[in-house]
């Protein structure tokens, strides 16, 4: 694993498309949101939050990955 590869991985992640984000861009007043649309958007964002929590938990459990191509002169031995 190199820093370039890590950066490419992160940059290659497809932006998530959430209904809530689209609603925000459309700038409606909260009171004007249709109940069904609002419900679906809330369910989706809760599921997304859950997936993020699971991913964060999995990442926290990963074994350390040596970044062999990264030079850190400040801490050189």
């Amino acid at each position: 694993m190199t820093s370039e590869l890590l950066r490419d991985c992160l940059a290659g992640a497809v932006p998530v498309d959430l209904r809530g984000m689209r609603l925000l861009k459309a700038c409606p007043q909260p009171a004007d949101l249709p109940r069904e649309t609002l419900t679906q958007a809330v369910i989706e964002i809760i599921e997304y939050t859950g997936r993020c929590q699971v991913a964060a938990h999995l990442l926290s459990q990963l074994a350390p990955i040596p970044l062999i191509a990264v030079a850190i002169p400040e801490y050189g031995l």
Partner: protein
Amino acid sequence: MTDDLLGAFNLLADGLRADPLLSLASAVCWLDPLWRDDGEDADVPYDTDGILAAALGITRRTFPEVYMQAVNAIRQGASYAEIDRLICEAVTARGIPLDGIEFMAYGIPLPAYGAALSDPDFYERHPDTLPVLACFGITPDPEAYAIDVPDLAYTAAQRIAADLEQQTDAGWQQIGWLLRWLFSCSGNSSVDYDDETMSGFQPLAWEPDDIAFAVEIIAEAETIMRDALAGLALLNGQPELTKALQQNVERITRSLDKRSTKGNLNEPHFRLEWPPARRGDHGTAVPDPQLLQLRDPAA
């Protein structure tokens, strides 16, 4: 991106609050996160998270106020150990002693005070019971794998306990409860069964009727054990009482022996004699700290 995401959260939260129905639904989910309880708690694996989920599900159905306290504590960032302690203390305060929430999923945990006289370990844990058991001919061999307790000892103990129950002397009544504990004939499951025996029974369920029953059993067991231990202290503190007990055991044993030898099926009749059991040293008044606290020194 982060600002957009937070903005979306805020927009949706505002939208929920603006709609009365969704606002009410949000309040339900917030106050009662397990509102969709559909009886699947039994399938929760016994890992840490599953144990807590099961405990929350049980408290939600049985002690809603405890459930609310636990949910509130979780929201405030309490650790697993803190939630565990909170639930255990609250359930214990309601009459069911609980050492850990991991025991909840099996059913209502009943304490098991039972005296396993055939187990040599019992005598190591309760060496102070040796003198009273010796009255019944039970002298455990520490090297033995299991102690053989003759049936006659159980029969004699039951007869003596029944006789002591009729005595007006509270000290002898307590000694009667001691015998009922030692020989597992109190009629209370918590007093009569040890852990191993208790584990062979289906535990009571976390249902209102069973909870009330368990609380009753446990409260009675604690009273019996208090009396039994007081009786033990009384016997060990007054050798003449142990001597009187031994003499009465011998009377009963002789009577039961004759009955079995002659094939007589009638109930044996015997007259037992009990000297006064002084509670305290030499019959003097013994201060009771609990009662003394009720008295106002200034009064």
